[in-house]
């Protein structure tokens, strides 16, 4: 394979996609947990 083809512009997947995905997962889980906490049933005063 020629180096030209090898270097041909291709969308490179890398760690940035991975960190975005994991970061989004953790934030979404934390936010949903927070929303459940805020909606927790409370005894009437």
């Amino acid at each position, binding site marked *: 394979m020629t180096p030209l083809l090898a270097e041909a512009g291709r*969308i490179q997947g890398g760690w940035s996609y991975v960190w975005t995905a994991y970061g989004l997962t953790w934030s979404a889980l934390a936010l949903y947990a927070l929303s459940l906490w805020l909606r927790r049933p409370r005894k009437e005063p």
Partner: protein
Amino acid sequence: MALKRTTWLAVAALLIAGGALAFIALGDLGSNLVYYWTPAEMLDAGSKAYGATIRLGGVVQRGTIAWDSGHTELTFRVANDMTPTAKNVLVRVRETPPQMFREGIGVVVEGTFDKSQVFTSNRLMVNHSNEYRPPKPGEGDRWKNTLSSDTTSSARPK
């Protein structure tokens, strides 16, 4: 206050759901709503395939990947399968291909076909198989720098 039992509603809802599922699963939906056409199907359609925006799916034929001199336009042939005699179509793309793009891999291209028998696409997608393997010893970060056809991925024309 006791809750009312509504068995008839349950039965009705289940019948509707079951009927809809059977219609979708057993009906001929697949042939009316295809996500992509294979090269053979598109060529068989003849002039009916000209002009409309359609998707074409198949595998990148060996030894057909080429860039133009300015490195802005990519051409390759999409074939029904990897056999040398498989029906195939020349595709011209100006998009940046994804990293897995290489010979022998499954692709879906969106665009138009015309009399010149060239499929002009503005959307190139690569489809991956359901296999996941680590690089073989000595391969290194092969995903970064190879366009060779030694791939575990392929399209699945049905």
